[in-house]
Every structure is written in C-alpha cells, then in structure tokens.
C-alpha cells in the first residue's frame, strides 16, 4: 500500500467518524426531552464532529495553505463554539427556564441578576 493510499484511508476514516458524530448529535437533538438536555446533544456535533472532520480535511489537503486556513478556522470554532453555547444557556437561565432535576436532586438557585427593587418592570 502506497503512502497516498494510507493517507486517504486515514483521512476518510476520520471524516466518516466525524460525520457519524454529527448524525449522533442530530439524533440526540431529536430524542432528548427538553431544552437543557438538547444543548448537550448539540455539543457532540460541536466538538467531536468538528474536530474529526477538520482532521480528515487537513489530511486530504496535505501541507498546503488550505491546511493552515483549516487550522485557523478550527481554532476560532474551538473558542467561539463553547462561548455561543454558554450564551444560549445563560439566556435560558436568565429568562427563567430551569432544568428538570433528576430524582433526588435539587438544583442550585442562582443569585438573582437584578435586585427586586431595581427595576419593577423586569421582575414582573
């Protein structure tokens, strides 16, 4: 087996497993019951799917400028992905949505962001 074939095989394995995790994320988004658990299903697409697909694409591109650009995009996604997830989760929490706790657990109540006297229009 020549080196090119080997690189092809490895990169295809990476891309196929990345696609597998993207599909898993989609299935999880459909199967999970509520907003909070679906957030976790999407994060599979976000982490494993993106990392494996990018690794596969980098191997297909070889030592070229395309690989450099892919790595730059990957680093950006690595920083912005969780930040966006946090923003969505935080918006849900602030607007009053609480996760359904598992049996025998009580969740932490966060400190109120606005004091009740500060703005009556918000607390109502």
């Amino acid at each position, binding site marked *: 087996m020549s080196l090119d074939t080997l690189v092809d095989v490895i990169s295809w394995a990476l891309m196929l497993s990345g696609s597998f995790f993207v599909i898993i994320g989609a299935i999880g988004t459909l199967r999970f019951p509520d907003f909070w*658990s679906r957030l976790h299903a999407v*994060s*599979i697409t*976000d982490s494993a799917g993106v990392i494996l697909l990018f690794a596969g694409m980098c191997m297909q591109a070889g030592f070229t400028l395309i690989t450099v650009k892919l790595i*730059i995009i990957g680093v950006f996604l690595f920083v912005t992905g*969780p930040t966006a997830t946090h923003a969505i989760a935080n918006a849900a*929490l602030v607007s009053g949505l609480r996760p359904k*706790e598992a049996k025998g*657990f009580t969740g*932490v109540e966060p400190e109120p962001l606005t004091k009740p006297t500060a703005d009556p229009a918000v607390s109502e």
Partner: protein
Amino acid sequence: MRIFGAIIVFLGLWLLLSGIYKPLTVGLGVVSTLAVVFILTRMNSIDEDRVEIEIKPVGFLLYQGWLLVEIAKANWVVTKIILAPSMPIKQHLFSIPYTQKSDLGQVIFANSITLTPGTVSVETEPGQFLIHAVAYSNDDKAALADMDRRVTACEKADIS
C-alpha cells in the same frame, strides 16, 4: 519593537490567508498592514492599554492535549446515552468553585467545561460557576475540580 512585531504578524496573516503572491495583492497587504499599524499607534496614545496574556504557552499546549482526551471520553459517554434505548439522562444544576486569578484563566476553564459534552457552564458568579450536567454522576465534581487545578497551573505565577 512592538510595532515591528505587529507588522510581521499582520503581514504574515495576510500572506497565509491570501495565498496569491502577485505584486498587486502583496502590495494591498502591505498597505492595509501599514494602515492598521498607523491606527493602532494613534489609538495607543489615548490610553496605553496592553493586552497581557497571563498563560504559560507550553503548559497551555499540554493542557490542550489533556483536554482533547477528556473531550473524546466525554463524547463517547454522551453518545452511549443518546443511543441507549432507555436514554438514562440525569439532569443536575450545581456550582463549582474556580481558583483562576486572571480573566483569561477563568474563560479557559468555563470554555473547557462547555467543550466537554455532558457539562455546560451556565452562569458565572463571584468565585463559582453554575454547571448543568446531562448525566450527573458523583465523580463529576472531583473531575471538574481536577480540571480547575490544571487550568490554574497554566497561569503565570506573578499575577496580582
């Protein structure tokens, strides 16, 4: 010195991203680099503010390697939950204290928590993060405390 460093970084970024080395494109890159540096020096005369990166580079790279392994493990756990017919989810909202002193360290810790599937950082409060876990187990707090210790170890020691 900082100006020359900035010129080299901006020009390098332009050349890497364009990939076309005709005189026109390279010339445009030089012009825009000089324009950006000119604006930067003008802005600098207002407040002399600098971004300090309070992270050890080598330690941070080693931490990234460790984080990738953790992401892989957590991915597999959540994948099994999604595919299991009974779907054993066990949601829990809990708080985790952080020990990082710098803002950047805290951001890295919170983003690492969100990057590992199964846990999402929901809210930041003074001294602690609010974490939501989809499949909470009693080891989760110890694992996150371990991650917290590793991020803190990446910070430079001499920050106020």
